[in-house]
């Protein structure tokens, strides 16, 4: 009897211990390392790093810029995302799922690809504008190299994020609350302003906080649009310092990355505080409200929405494809000049680009695979476990993703700058440090869908196996894993798509030989070879699209909301 108790408890303890080790290694350790570097570099309490950071005017200029583009981008994203969510959710507009798919697409495209695409559309070398002979003369400054350009693209990139959260909130709006107002004599617009939007403030606030964190932590857009105009935000300032100074300036950049972390956390705290004052919990469950009939406005609204899609998705990608077909900078694209040389060059001739494709693919596959394997037991403990520390566990897994990627990258550098104690293994300057950072950063992308998968499974299925005599590991393998596999795998595919053209983390961690697609794309663009960068972007976007189609095959087995682009 006691032996059997020991056996079943033993398996549970092994599971818990493994999960705890993984979490400590991936999320707590790097953060502790970062804090230690600031408070006590080299093991001695010191305020030198903080003071140096505070004294430098560059810090304050970059902080100001970060706040400006962060707040501006957030406002734009919230306005556009909420507007689209309201129109899509509450009116009888047609072609909804196609529209949602297209509108959410920019979220699946890496920020630096978005930046590159828009730059190609409006610059003096734009093959698109040249088609109409409307391109500004060569040498003119691209209008996107500016504060408003950065804000615009951040709004385009993260509008869909706001859209998804507000749409989820609108779906839960019980129709009675709308109908009671209409029976009270309110027309549709009055209902929207006095009932719907006030009830949606918690969703909108959450969305705004997330968009703000994403905007202040974004590297790709301010790197492509800000660096040429010498308009630095904190992430690009860190990048420039590290690129110029190497490990010597690590203490200084640690301070800057904590500063970004503080700004991001301030955004989340502001949301917490404002939501606490407004408790608009909607308790009843009911059908969603009948869509509002737009009548003769329907055609106009639909046309407006598709115009928006043209602007934020179709035209930039079109511009990107055109650029990738042009033989050289500033040459007009005609049937005669169009060439596939750029593709041949990046795929077969350029060594670093070759390595980058190889590295990014296996890094993404490894990160996705690892995350799926880890997400199943971690999700099990979070969704079905009874322990009290589980909430903390969930929080600490979210941390590396909630904080801007730059923070995690600096923390990883600090952690692995010296060889790992006892083993002497050196991760710094190898591709493995990038893998470590990817694992830490993206785990939560597989964990979230897995947890919602667990919540949809009747626990009795596992308990039936338990009654039938199966131990914890047997149950995990034969019952639990097959049931949550679709959700976990969908999460893995999301990780693959995100990691494939990732730039923020790898820009700080790469070394010669361990380039990623994002890094090579960035260096092509910085060297003026936009055509090569465009060709690489088109390839990654095409891979992402194809993966989205493949992932759609899993859709019937997934909890709703796992695939953001499916309505």
């Amino acid at each position, binding site marked *: 009897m006691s032996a059997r108790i020991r056996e079943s408890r033993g398996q549970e303890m092994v599971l818990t211990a493994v999960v705890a080790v993984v979490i400590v290694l991936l999320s707590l350790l790097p953060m502790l390392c970062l804090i230690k570097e600031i408070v006590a570099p080299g093991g001695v309490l010191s305020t030198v790093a903080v003071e140096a950071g505070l004294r430098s005017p560059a810090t304050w200029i970059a902080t100001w810029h970060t706040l400006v583009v962060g707040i501006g981008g957030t406002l734009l994203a919230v306005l556009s995302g909420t507007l689209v969510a309201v129109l899509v959710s509450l009116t009888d507009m047609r072609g909804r799922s196609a529209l949602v798919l297209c509108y959410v697409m920019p979220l699946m495209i890496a920020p630096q690809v978005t930046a590159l695409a828009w730059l190609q559309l409006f610059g003096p070398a734009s093959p698109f504008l040249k088609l109409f002979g409307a391109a500004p003369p060569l040498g003119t400054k691209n209008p996107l190299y500016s504060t408003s350009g950065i804000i615009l693209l951040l709004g385009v990139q993260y509008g869909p994020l706001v859209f998804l959260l507000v749409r989820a909130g609108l779906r839960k709006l019980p129709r*009675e*609350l709308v*109908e*009671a107002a209409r029976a*009270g004599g309110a*027309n549709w617009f009055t209902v929207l302003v006095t*009932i719907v939007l006030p*009830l949606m403030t918690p969703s909108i606030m959450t969305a705004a906080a997330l968009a703000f964190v994403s905007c202040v932590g974004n590297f790709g857009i301010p790197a492509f649009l800000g660096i040429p105009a010498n308009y630095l935000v904190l992430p690009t300032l860190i990048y420039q310092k590290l690129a110029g100074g190497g490990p010597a300036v690590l203490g200084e950049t640690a301070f800057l990355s904590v500063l970004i972390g503080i700004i991001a956390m301030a955004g989340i705290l502001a949301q917490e505080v404002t939501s606490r004052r407004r408790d608009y919990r909607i308790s009843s469950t009911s059908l969603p409200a009948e869509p509002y009939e737009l009548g003769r406005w329907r055609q106009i609204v639909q046309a407006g929405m598709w115009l928006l899609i043209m602007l934020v998705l179709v035209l930039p990608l079109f511009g990107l494809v055109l650029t990738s077909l042009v033989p050289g900078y500033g040459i007009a694209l005609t049937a005669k000049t169009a060439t596939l040389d750029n593709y041949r060059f990046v795929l077969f001739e350029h060594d670093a680009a070759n390595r980058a494709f190889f590295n990014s693919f296996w890094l993404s596959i490894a990160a996705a695979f690892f995350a799926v394997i880890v997400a199943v037991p971690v999700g099990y403990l979070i969704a079905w476990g009874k322990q009290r520390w589980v909430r903390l566990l969930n929080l600490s897994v979210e941390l590396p993703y909630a904080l801007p990627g730059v923070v995690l990258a600096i923390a990883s550098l600090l952690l692995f700058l010296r060889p790992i104690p006892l083993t002497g293994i050196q991760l710094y300057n190898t591709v493995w440090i990038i893998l470590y950072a990817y694992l830490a950063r993206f785990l939560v992308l597989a964990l979230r869908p897995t947890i919602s998968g667990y919540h949809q499974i009747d626990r009795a299925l596992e308990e039936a196996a338990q009654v039938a005599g199966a131990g914890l590991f047997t149950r995990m393998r034969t019952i639990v894993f097959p049931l949550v596999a679709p959700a976990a795998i969908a999460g893995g595919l999301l990780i693959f798509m995100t990691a494939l053209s990732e730039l923020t983390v790898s820009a700080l961690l790469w070394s010669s030989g361990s380039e990623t697609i994002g890094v090579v794309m960035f260096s092509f663009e910085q060297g003026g070879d936009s055509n090569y960068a465009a060709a690489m972007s088109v390839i990654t976007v095409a891979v992402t699209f194809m993966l989205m189609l493949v992932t759609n095959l899993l859709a019937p087995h997934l909890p709703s909301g796992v695939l953001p682009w499916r309505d």
Partner: protein
Amino acid sequence: MARLTLDHVTKSFADFDAVKDVSIDVGDGEFLAVLGPSGCGKTTLLRLVAGFEKVTSGEIRIGGDVVSNSGGSVAPEKRRVGIVFQNYALWPHMSVAENIGYSLKVARLDKAVARQKVEDALALVNLQGLGERRPANLSGGQRQRVALARCLVAAPSLVLFDEPLANLDVHLRASMEDEFAAFHKRTGTTIVYITHDQAEAMALADRIAVMDHGRLAQLATPRELYHEPANEMVASFISQGILLPADVLTGEEGGHCKVRVLGRELVVRCRPGERPRAAARLCCRSADIEISADASGFDGLVKRAVYQGGAARIEFVPAAGPDLTLHFEQPDPVVLESGAQARLRIKSGWLIPATGTARDDAG
């Protein structure tokens, strides 16, 4: 105050008819209950009247104005109907007073006047002094009163109740029932009250519309529904009526006729103009059945006897009809036990009119 007329109203969703050819005329100030099992189309009917759904065919008039027909529909906000929802539908981001005053604010009424009206409405539902509370801080009964006050304050021409007591516990139900009745008496508003609870409908309504599979099964006063059901569905749905096969032997005379049921002849109530026919149906209530030893009775077996305190519910299978079950109450001292042989007599009953006999596809 206004009358409400539904004229051959049909509502189809895709290939499913939720409401089929329903005609109801609700008089000015009348309290009409719409009663039926779940899925019978009663909620769709309410949503059609409120204007949240459009009719497929037919016409709805409120106070003489056409508000819905196949050509178009007046928007809900222009109909001046009040609705009390099952889940109250109070807006969580507004105080009680703001909830009640919403329609006045929308109508841009003078603020002082609106405040007075809100106070009056609060007093009418006995919630004085709770105006600044949030709906979340009220009990279920209080929330229902707020919902009532909210729909009252706009002086609607018609008030619709959508199963307003379904979420309340038994004690609250009884007191809210009293409150609704008092409210109707005080205001004289035309009321359409949707429910699946027949006791509630009987207690409150002037007339009851029984719905079944989207159709109007019968529209009558509570008494008439109980004593003279128009068809088998109503007969069995209201108070668990017992249906027995019968042959009509004589034509109607003074509201009665002679029938043969389970091999015995007896006189029952019927509609004027009934003629002799075979394969008719008789509706009996448990009060119409008694134990009898004489020749007018029929033999059978007691299938079950369930003691219910002071009386037992006896289920009885007659020998002449082994697939029928009759049930009745036997007061203490209970002598029948399950498995016992017994002889029963039917005192009276109601002959279901010929047009109301179920077709084969019904059920």
